[in-house]
């Protein structure tokens, strides 16, 4: 067992956990933040993407103890009360989700992209989403949503 001290969406947590628990399982089962999803569990689909100190990362391929002392943002941390984050609004406006399973990971990834590149081209947006798989939408509306959010 190990002790973890961690900030999630601006709130401090101190928990006792197994040495080998994955970050995604810690967030979902210990903290109750189930917006982050386990899709493939093999680092390929991106449904588990969260931010660690601002960078998007696959939480299914991270041990919770690796991020002891760090600052995590999950999908739940994007909105401000009932006010959606601009990227969430853009996804809504552009019908960029259907079943919604891949959506939290894609939104978190999009937030990171626009932090690092204020005006990405369509190719740059598509390249950025290399680590995400969506089975419903065909990606077109997701790209449109990101382009709307740039404006």
């Amino acid at each position, binding site marked *: 067992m190990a002790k973890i001290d961690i900030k999630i969406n601006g709130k401090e947590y101190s928990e006792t956990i*197994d040495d*080998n628990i994955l970050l995604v399982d810690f967030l979902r089962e210990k903290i109750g933040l189930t917006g982050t999803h386990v899709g493939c569990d093999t680092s*390929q689909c991106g449904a588990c993407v969260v931010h660690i100190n601002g960078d*998007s990362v696959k939480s299914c*391929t991270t041990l919770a103890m690796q991020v*002891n002392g760090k600052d995590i943002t999950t999908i739940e941390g994007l909105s401000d009360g009932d006010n959606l984050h601009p990227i969430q609004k853009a996804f809504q406006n552009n019908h960029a989700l259907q079943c919604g399973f891949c959506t939290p990971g894609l939104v978190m*990834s999009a937030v990171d992209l626009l932090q690092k590149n204020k005006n990405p081209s369509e190719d740059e947006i598509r390249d950025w989403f*290399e*680590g995400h798989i969506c089975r419903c939408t065909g990606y077109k509306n997701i790209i449109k949503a990101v382009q709307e959010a740039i404006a």
Partner: protein
Amino acid sequence: MYNFKFHKVDKIEDAVAILSSAEDPKILSGGHTLIPTLKQRLSQPTDVIDISNIDSLKSIKNNGDLITIGALCTHSQVATSMDVQSEIVGLASMASQIGDPQVRHRGTIGGSIANADPAADYPAAVLALDAKITTSSNSYNSDDFFIDMFETAINSDEIITSIDFKIPKKSVYKKFRNPASGYAMAGVFIAIFEEGIRVAITGASTTAFRLHDLEKKLENNFSVDVLNDFNADTTNYNSDIHASAKYRGNLVKVLLEEVIAELV
């Protein structure tokens, strides 16, 4: 995942101490090879040593004729480094082709080189740029480093700390990506130095390797014409569900043409 004891260290000496004393320890850097391995229960270490807090291993330095990259530098750091982009563009380009942006935020150059996956990208750069690999207790030349699949020259109580890459006049890396994993089904790195040319291949065999005969031919005549009678010797190439040895041989030739054409 089997359970283990997790350690986070701040100094290399502490990591080496646990490596030497624990029953079956493993170093954890970015974790994007080790953690999937643990999840599949393919490995059962007693101790996992997280070295990611060792800040002294995270810098990139331009030393004039070589660039020193700390072992904990992420692929994202290497890809976006102004020094690497301006001095060894083939290396920056390689780093930007690994995995995806999220993987590149975690995966490290030290981890990739120590793991020596036959389909990893960095081993081609190590050979093509005649890199020197420095560890916690030793240093190695590029040509002596990769022994076999997942096997390098370093001992079990050593940790890679930095890699010195020679700055070439020109460099290009191209790979044929496995459409699912993104790993190199074949990858070609060519670096042009004053003293000569180095051609390194990854993804095709059990380790990365150089094509010495082709290097000499290119030194005499740097053009795609040298490939007219080139046929890869596929004796030791891998055959698996992704590609036969023969197909990989063809990929190597196609990639050589593309890389040479870009460098001409």
